[in-house]
């Protein structure tokens, strides 16, 4: 007697679905997506729901187990490659249509698993994508750059007391610069809201000093959702606010796809569709 193996074909065992973004169904964007390469250089395809679609790649499941992902993130070269591959797909689509980027490294068992969520959360996706249409995200980072209180190179403190005195002076300067940076950040928030140059704002955690290639301490790390037609006014207004400030450095980054505005803000998350929690279980 010949017994049929009751395991599914190998393809079902080895493939998983890596998702980049959700968008409203849109022929031009879908065509563009099919030309792209995603994580690990893999082809990108469109997974169509009723009126939304997910942008995905088929990935070998064993390259995206929990352990494999942790290893990738732990290696700067692999981490950077994964982040840039993911971003490249999203950035290319964001220039075509409103996209809702997914967080890094979302890997689903199969198409059905993701399609079910597209269906259940369709209302949230539709509403959010309509709000994001015609908007870009812009980053504004403000660095405190305290007046030079540290001795010039080569002039090292001669004693412990010298060192402590220098530290104290440096700390006072640091506190002032820090406060000035926070004040400027608040002024930027207020001005953009009052002038309707930004429709939403998120504050990211300041970046660790070690990660900034330039001097100064990052105090404000904000993201603004800016109507595309106001791009120039937004930039001008922010630059004017920063002009003439002493000991501060302001940096604008963007335009970004609306990464920071894809999820409900933390304080609204509880009231939002419970199908989209802030963290995975």
């Amino acid at each position, binding site marked *: 007697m010949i017994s049929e193996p009751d395991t599914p074909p190998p393809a079902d065992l080895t493939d*998983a679905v890596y998702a980049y973004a*959700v968008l409203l169904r849109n022929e031009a964007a879908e065509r563009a997506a099919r030309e792209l390469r995603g994580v690990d250089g893999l082809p990108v395809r469109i997974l169509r729901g009723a009126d939304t679609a997910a942008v995905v790649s088929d990935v070998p*499941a064993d390259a*995206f*187990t*929990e352990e494999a*992902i*942790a290893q990738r*993130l*732990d*290696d*700067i070269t692999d*981490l*950077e490659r994964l*982040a*840039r591959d*993911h*971003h490249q797909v999203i950035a*290319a689509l*964001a*220039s075509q249509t409103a996209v*809702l*980027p*997914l*967080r*890094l*490294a*979302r*890997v*689903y*068992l199969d198409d059905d*698993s993701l399609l*079910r*969520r597209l269906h259940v*959360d369709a209302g949230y996706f539709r509403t959010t994508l309509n709000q994001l249409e015609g908007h870009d*995200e812009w*980053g504004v980072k403000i660095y405190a750059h305290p007046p030079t209180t540290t001795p010039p190179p080569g002039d090292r403190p001669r004693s412990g007391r010298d060192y402590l005195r220098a530290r104290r002076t440096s700390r006072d300067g640091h506190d002032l610069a820090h406060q000035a940076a926070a004040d400027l950040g608040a002024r930027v928030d207020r001005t953009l809201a009052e002038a309707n140059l930004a429709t939403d704002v*998120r504050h990211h*955690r300041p*970046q*660790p000093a*070690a990660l900034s290639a330039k001097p100064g301490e990052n105090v404000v*790390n904000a*993201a603004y959702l800016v109507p*595309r037609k106001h*791009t120039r006014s937004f*930039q001008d207004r922010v630059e004017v606010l920063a002009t003439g400030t002493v000991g501060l450095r302001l940096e604008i*980054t*963007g*335009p970004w796809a609306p*990464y*920071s505005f*894809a*999820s409900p803000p933390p304080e609204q998350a509880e009231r939002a569709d419970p*199908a*989209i929690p*802030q*963290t*995975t*279980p």
Partner: protein
Amino acid sequence: MTAGGLPHAEVALVDLLDRLLAGGVVITGDLSLCIADVELVRISLRALLTSVEAATEGILT
């Protein structure tokens, strides 16, 4: 900076990770991997910091 289109210049990895790890929508479902977001952030940050330390080691000593 280009208005409308997205930039071709390479973005800073640290700015990108702010967005990829703290932003982005989280769609639950049958995820084949269940690494917690807080772990994603922790591991990535450690990798970033380690790489910066390695790069500046020669300068600081």
